[in-house]
């Protein structure tokens, strides 16, 4: 199918085509770009670098109810989620974040051996409208970890911002079906396509950070006890901002909220992070990752060594959020560079 053109003043019309979806799009809240469910297309921010919190928060929210329960006498009645068939559309997802859903889905299914029904069902019901990254940030390095500022494959529909209009390309079957229905979309001209190509080329050139993920993977294996980890941990404050803003971090904690008056309760999962000492604390009181050294190491090992071992992919999409927002300026890029320098 050939590419289409969506004028920016047609966004409202485009939005209306998704009436049976929960429409999530980037909005500006107090200066932060966040993916929120919108009811008015005017709320959508079209001109943004990337969201502060990745769109993973839609499918894997900071707080998610797993099930609810209620006491009846001594019996417990479990009420499962009944909203898992809801459909979602994520508009304006950057290619790195679009790719992250695949990485997260890997975790939540573990080769089909251990499936998280809630996440996977939501993922299945989600349509991703990706958007090419015309101006990647200085902190971006998607090209080193299997991505690209114009990588389309992880989106169902892919948009390229041409200024006044978007070049629309349907990627998946789901996407094609939808675009086909939107007969009002104009066809793209060769000039449009040419411009998109140029933008893609320019964007890729703007990414200056290059790391060798494969090499790092090999080095990490042999350097579990390398002094570099102490160095990395030295300035870390141990907050976990990196994990909370990471599009591929999947750690969660499960808690129980019990309402003592109605005797009803909920089992909830909330974001957690391996940077928190409590995360790895065992019931016995033993903590296998007692200090920041082990915890900092774990986060990097997980992305660049354990994940590749499990799924043959790097567990990082190179979005640069952890680089930009680390309070201690513990720059992942520099750390990876240093690891690369370790002599094996």
């Amino acid at each position, binding site marked *: 199918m050939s590419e289409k053109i969506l004028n920016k003043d047609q966004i409202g019309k485009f939005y209306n085509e998704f009436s049976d979806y929960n429409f999530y799009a980037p909005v500006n809240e107090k200066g932060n770009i966040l993916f929120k469910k919108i009811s008015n297309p005017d709320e959508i921010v079209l001109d943004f670098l990337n969201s502060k919190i990745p769109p993973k928060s839609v499918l894997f929210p900071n707080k998610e109810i797993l099930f609810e329960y209620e006491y009846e006498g001594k019996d417990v009645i479990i009420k499962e989620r009944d909203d898992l068939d809801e459909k979602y559309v994520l508009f304006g997802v950057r290619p790195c974040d679009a790719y992250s859903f695949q990485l997260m889905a890997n975790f939540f299914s573990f080769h089909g051996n251990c499936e998280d029904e809630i996440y996977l069902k939501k993922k299945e019901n989600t349509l991703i409208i990706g958007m090419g990254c015309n101006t990647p940030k200085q902190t971006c390095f998607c090209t080193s970890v299997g991505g690209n500022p114009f990588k389309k494959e992880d989106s169902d529909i892919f948009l390229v911002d041409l200024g006044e209009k978007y070049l629309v390309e349907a990627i998946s079957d789901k996407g094609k079906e939808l675009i086909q229905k939107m007969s009002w979309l104009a066809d793209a001209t060769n000039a449009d396509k040419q411009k998109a190509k140029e933008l893609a080329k320019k964007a890729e050139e703007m990414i200056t950070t290059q790391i060798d993920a494969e090499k790092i993977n090999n080095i990490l294996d042999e350097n579990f006890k390398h002094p570099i980890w102490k160095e990395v941990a030295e300035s870390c404050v141990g907050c976990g901002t990196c994990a909370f803003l990471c599009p591929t971090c999947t750690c969660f904690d499960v808690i129980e909220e019990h309402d003592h008056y109605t005797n009803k309760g909920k089992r*909830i999962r909330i974001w957690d992070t391996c940077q928190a000492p409590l995360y790895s604390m065992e019931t016995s009181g033993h903590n296998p990752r007692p200090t920041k050294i082990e915890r900092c190491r774990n986060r990097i090992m997980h992305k660049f060594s354990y994940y590749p071992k499990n799924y043959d992919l790097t567990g990082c999409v190179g979005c640069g959020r952890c680089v930009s927002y680390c309070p201690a300026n513990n720059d992942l*890029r520099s750390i990876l560079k240093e690891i690369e320098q370790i002599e094996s």
Partner: protein
Amino acid sequence: MGLEEDNKKIEESMRETARKLLEDKEVDAVIGYTEGTLPMSSMAMVITRAEDVDKLIWNNYCYINLATYLVPRIAQLVDPEKGDLKVGVISKGCVGRAIIHLKVEGQLNLDNVKIIGIPCNGIIDRKRIEKEIGQKEILEVSTSGNEIIVKGRDFEEKFAFDEYILNVCKQCKVKSPPNVDDACVGECQEIESVSDDYSDLAEFEALSAEEKWNHITELLEQCTKCHACREACPMCYCNLCFVDQNKPIWFGKTTDLSDIIVFHLIRSIHLVGRCVACGACTSVCPMGIDLNLLIRKVERIAKDRFDFTSGLSSKVMPPMMDFSMNDSQEFMLEED
């Protein structure tokens, strides 16, 4: 004199002091700031050799409170007998105050910590500038005269330094560390108490309960409970924060508004008479939540109720470590 010259001067004398301490083996290590990898950032660094002192820098983005790296208690720093580790800490006023207060709370021994004082000239509110620049990437920041110049791919903006430093810095009365128990080298001052005026709080305090509630909830609603504020806070050194406790479970851990509010509320209670107003919490918040209001109020409660300002003395006990027959009790319910 412009900011650059000021900073250069501070930097040079700080390096000189650090070099001397290391050379004379008075300290084993110096914790300081080094150049960050991003505009408007800096990084904490530990140096152990005198030849590395030139890596230490000072600029107006040194927002982390370095005292936070001294807690939880490092055994060697507490016990002079085990004291095989002596540390110098590059200290703006609030870092020095934090170290002194940590001493009062038994977290370290001042015999083992040298406060390398510097006269801080204010920390730039980077979150505010980021917000004002909006969806453009800041690639370069410099200071010139009394201006902060922010540059990106296709823009350049200027901000007045005095206006764009952290609110706590605007109110700061302790720019260089108090000299307590001769723990201070470099730039420090004799200071017993500070008078402060809280007119900056007046507008908020005049609000009705309902309005205050709305204001606070609006301020905090974006909190993701990542706890960066807590981790960057030199006074939040609990091994297991009350929100993380589960025996019993006191308060919810989710990002429900009530859980967010109660976290900040109890944290504020815990910080009365302890907060050193460094503003690190605000500087590190990934969501750009400005906690200035809370900091100022917490300071004010300690000052108004107990005439106490944290981190000025190793002798005066902070409010919750002390009590008096004569404390005010105007809030007690009385018969009409």
